[in-house]
């Protein structure tokens, strides 16, 4: 730094300080969210009944839990995952193995990214317009799962496609050279070698869907009862947190914090495990 004028040095120092400050400004909210959710959440979970009881009929009453919402979130996310993760991976297999480089595959890849930017509320309105308006004529867990699935789909497709395209061509060629048919090569060679990456993408999609509120508002609607009926309204953690955040009743706000802790634990565990899998066994 010899020969650098004082003014240039000052600019350098100011700007570098700003960069560090920017990192702090981004990390302080993260820390604050985690600390608040953990402290307020732990304070609001009174024993196991939080996980086994539905909320009390009177929102103003204390006690009860959010078992309805925990079961609802798990049910709808699982239902969405069972249908849309295979759909996304199949789409990705088609793109990389059977149509790589052609115009359709480029268009699908591009619009999958565009679709991840669609406002999730509109995904909810779409699911409503199909399953609530045309099929069931009332709110249902299936409609909620459909909306969540539509959110997972492009994420799974996009990440799987990227992971599959990282499998070296030589691996495919080696298998084909042994006389293995294409479908067997894909099933026994390509997919297994990309397994870790596919798992990561799917888990990130599940984490994202589990935290969504807007798509469930006019599809699953919510319910204060523990319900396993897929054709009926169902609660979900984000929905309960959302009502709690708007509630004037301290007890309901308490349950919202406890729900927030449960949800954030679920989402962060999924996200962190996904990253761990990706780091551990990347292709």
């Amino acid at each position, binding site marked *: 730094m010899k020969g650098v004028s004082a003014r240039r040095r000052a600019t350098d120092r100011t700007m*570098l300080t700003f960069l560090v400050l920017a990192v702090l400004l981004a990390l302080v909210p993260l820390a604050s969210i985690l600390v608040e959710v953990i402290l307020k959440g732990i304070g609001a979970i009174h024993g196991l009944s939080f996980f086994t009881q539905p909320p009390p009929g009177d929102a103003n009453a204390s006690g009860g839990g959010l078992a309805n919402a925990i079961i609802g979130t798990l049910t709808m996310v699982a239902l969405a995952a069972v249908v849309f993760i295979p759909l996304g991976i199949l789409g990705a297999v088609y793109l990389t193995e059977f149509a790589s480089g052609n115009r359709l595959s480029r268009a699908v890849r591009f619009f999958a990214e565009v679709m991840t930017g*669609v*406002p999730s509320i509109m995904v909810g309105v779409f699911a409503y317009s199909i399953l609530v308006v045309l099929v069931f004529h009332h709110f249902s867990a299936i409609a909620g799962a459909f909306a969540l699935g539509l959110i997972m789909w492009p994420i799974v497709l996009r990440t799987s496609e990227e992971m599959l395209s990282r499998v070296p061509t030589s691996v495919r060629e080696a298998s084909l050279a042994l006389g293995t048919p294409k479908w067997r090569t894909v099933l026994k060679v390509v997919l297994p070698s990309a397994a870790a990456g596919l798992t990561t993408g799917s888990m990130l999609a599940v984490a994202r869907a589990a935290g969504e509120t807007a798509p469930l508002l006019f599809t699953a609607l919510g319910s204060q009862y523990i319900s396993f009926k897929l054709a009926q309204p169902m609660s979900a953690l984000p929905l309960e947190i959302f009502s709690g955040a708007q509630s004037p009743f301290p007890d309901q706000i308490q349950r919202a914090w406890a729900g927030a802790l449960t949800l*954030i634990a679920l989402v962060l565990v999924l996200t962190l495990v996904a990253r761990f899998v990706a780091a551990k066994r990347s292709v």
Partner: protein
Amino acid sequence: MLGASALLLALALMVVRFLQLSWPVWKAHGLGWIVGTHWAPAEGIFGALPFIVGTVVTSVIALVIGTPIALGTALFVSEIAPAKIRRPISDLIDLLAAVPSVIYGLWGIIVVLPLLQPVEQFLADSLGRFIPIFAGPPSGTSFFAAGVVLAIMIVPTISAVTREVFVTVPQDVREAAFALGATRWEMIRYGVLPPAQAGIVGAVILGLGRALGETVAVLLLIGQIPSISKSIFSGGYSMASVIANEFGQSQEPLHLQALIAIGLVLFVVTVLMNIFARLLVGRAKA
């Protein structure tokens, strides 16, 4: 084949369904209702401008605050940070994207609003005397409150994309800058930022797209008042949040159709912006 092209079909079907369901509104009011300033569903008056203004104002506030922070974090990670802490810091910033938006909303109401109160009061008392957009009295939930929380929510989006773009700037450029005697900031300013420009613009538009479509966090913080006000410290409404809030309560078919029409506008705008941004980022990374 089906698994792949079905996605394109789904997107197309969305446009068709939204258009179909909102058709009576377009037929009855043409395009004029979009700039209508009055929203009174009970009287059958549907003007979308208050929501459009609210969406734009909160998103602009989010960009003004969020963009410098996001670019700063991305530059810090790609250019300044010692190799050991790069990964942990970028992972932590990515975690901000994993936090569900309803939790941002809850946290915003309980933690951020009380902290913003004195800031808003101070700005209203000082700048607010001369500049109408800062005029008081602050109302608690407001465009500003929603914008601040949105800013935090879009930081990870902009940061992650610009980080990827900075990484593609060849190492030679950095070494050449240092060889010419540049300071680290000059290396960034003249070496890294110029080739990354298109990518940065694309990343900011992606962030804007996320801000425009954000629903529940904004709904909880914006005040839910369907009127256009001059000050960012007063309450308002946004396109996504009015759909979330009124969709379930709408009695009149036309009310529901008007909400879907607002949604269609939002949908088309965000999709077009995403297409444009992806093209920019794609070109920058190539």
